[in-house]
């Protein structure tokens, strides 16, 4: 007697995701052309949106997928920014070249940080990361060569003669300031696209499956051979690298640093948390939706000072209580649409056609 083995395969693709790949390509093409299409102020706004998106995607990977809730990501933003400043001011390295160096320094900082904070249980891990960020801030504020507590600026000639700026001026006839804005914007675009690509790839890989298993039930995941600690440590290092890169890039554009600004918990962690929570934690689409809403709210309410943050806090609390998966999560639950599907589905074979509940399918 032979049993027919149905031929089915595991896929994550959905109709919506094929559609979104097309839309994504179109948006990307438009985004690349943006410096030629929109005024300089808008390019700076887009730069802000893209860098916040990188920070939000990183935090989302950390909290939403690895279950590591950090309120100390400003440690990596600030450390990356300071590493870039150090490389430029002390060693005369080109700011653009200093950005990847800063990313590596961010990942390096994550090793001792993880060593301490991974000893703390769940919620205490959150405050532990905050303490580490404070320690790094206080230590860097002692570094007189980089301006100590008051901070310092990038030398003018360093930003003016950045790699690529001259090329843009010759090629498109841009002014120096315009060229450096366009350059940092394109780098932010590359970084944001690479971050989303990297996270999406990671989540669809075997390691990503392990990560989801650890998040859902750590004991069960360990029982089937997933090394939970190693997986979490890997995610922590990756996000530190990405956050360090983003920090360095943000401060190449700002060209002025101080410990209080570079390690601001409001700017680099509170905003990022609200972006992810409002958009939808644990989804790749969430931070994208969140950053757009965040930007609109900021423009709408920026005249109201602290009322703006107050509102953001209230919205965050309400979303967490009544739609814990955020706006995108609520939308996705209703419609079943996933633009970056990571859920594995069986395609082909009898299982694909089975209906829920019936004994004979």
């Amino acid at each position, binding site marked *: 007697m032979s049993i027919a083995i149905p031929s089915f395969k595991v896929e994550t693709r959905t109709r919506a995701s094929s559609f979104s790949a097309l839309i994504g390509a179109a948006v990307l093409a438009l985004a690349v052309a943006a410096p030629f299409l929109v005024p300089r102020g808008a390019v700076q706004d887009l730069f802000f949106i893209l860098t916040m998106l990188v920070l939000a995607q990183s935090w989302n990977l950390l*909290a939403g997928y690895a*279950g590591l*809730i950090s*309120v100390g990501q400003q440690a990596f933003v600030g450390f990356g920014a300071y590493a870039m400043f150090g490389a430029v001011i002390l060693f005369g390295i080109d700011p653009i070249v200093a950005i990847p160096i800063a990313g590596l320094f961010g990942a390096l900082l994550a090793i001792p940080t993880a060593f*301490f904070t991974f*000893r*703390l*249980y*769940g*919620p*205490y891990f*959150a*405050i*532990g990361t*905050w*303490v580490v960020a*404070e*320690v790094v801030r*206080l*230590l860097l*504020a*002692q570094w007189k060569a980089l301006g100590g507590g008051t901070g310092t600026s990038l030398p003018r000639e360093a930003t003016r003669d950045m790699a690529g700026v001259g090329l843009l001026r010759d090629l498109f006839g841009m002014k120096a300031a315009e060229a450096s804005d366009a350059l940092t914007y394109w780098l932010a675009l590359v970084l944001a696209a690479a971050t989303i690509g990297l996270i999406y790839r990671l989540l669809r890989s075997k390691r990503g499956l392990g990560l989801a298993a650890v998040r859902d039930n750590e004991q069960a995941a360990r029982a089937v051979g997933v090394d939970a600690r190693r997986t979490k440590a890997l995610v922590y290092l990756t996000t530190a690298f990405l956050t360090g890169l983003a920090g360095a890039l943000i401060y190449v554009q700002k060209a002025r640093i101080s410990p209080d600004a570079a390690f601001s*918990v*409001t700017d680099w962690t*509170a905003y990022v*948390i*609200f972006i992810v*929570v409002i958009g939808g*934690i644990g989804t790749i689409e969430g931070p994208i939706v969140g950053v757009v809403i965040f930007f609109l709210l900021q423009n709408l309410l920026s005249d109201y*000072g*602290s*009322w703006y*943050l*107050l509102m*953001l*806090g*209230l919205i*965050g*609390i309400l979303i*967490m*209580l009544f739609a*814990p998966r955020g706006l995108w999560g609520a939308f996705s639950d209703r419609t079943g649409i996933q633009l970056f599907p990571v859920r594995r589905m069986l395609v082909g074979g009898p299982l694909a056609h089975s209906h829920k509940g019936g004994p004979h399918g």
Partner: protein
Amino acid sequence: MSFIDTIVQGVLLGSLYALFAAGLSLVFGIMRLVNLAHGDLIVLAAFLLLVLVTGLGLHPFLAALVAAPLMFGAGWALQYVLLNRTLGKDVLPPLLVTFGLSIVIQNSLLEGFSADSRRISAGALETASIGFGPVTVGFMPLLGFLSAVAVIVGLNLLIYRSAIGRAFRATSDDAVTAGLMGIRPQRIFAMATGLAMVVVTIAALYLGTRANFDPTAGPARLIYAFEAVIIGGLGSLWGTLAGGVILGVAQTLGAAVNPEWQILAGHLAFLAVLLIKPRGLFPRAVD
């Protein structure tokens, strides 16, 4: 004798940190909830005291007596209406909701009181001091130390010797089974947070009379409280007092070397304890 003086001042400062930490420790012990808005609630209580003192002309201690029941009610309602909804297996909702709350409290205080730093005036008591041989101790800091010890003794008596304390411990061990015995966990949790807010009011009294505070002072208080709890070891209130004292002494010693190193020295002491004894010096709880 400046070394002994530094140590004594550190112990007194540390007892203030223990007061910050006692409420955090109590709430965590009973419902495994870490309230990221704890520091902001301390600052909120300090502003409430400030309003009572300047608005009604009350003496700070009398103001604390008036504020304590108000803060108890606020804590009770906060837990019953908001935080109870977030409790569960997932640690994410309570953390994110209390983080949001922290931002909301900070910015409400900024709107209401501006960013100026304030101080609660305690009149002649502020400058009064008592001499103990070579060291002179300020009256208010000494009273703060005695209050911290009294709060710890009181909480220990309440938790281990009273009916409500038995309900606290039962709910902490197993909320579902406690529910079967006629305890309503939701109310027990609300009661615990209310109680923590009374401790917060006492902490705010000494914070406000000792030093300046402003609406953004909360997060630093949360960090000190957290460090005291971790240094002392989870689940032990006496450990929390010891943790606060160690933190305070580390800070004053650091400040004696270089005023810029005060906060850093405290953080480094915390990291050293975490390195050597990850579960704290006097751990009691399993998690």
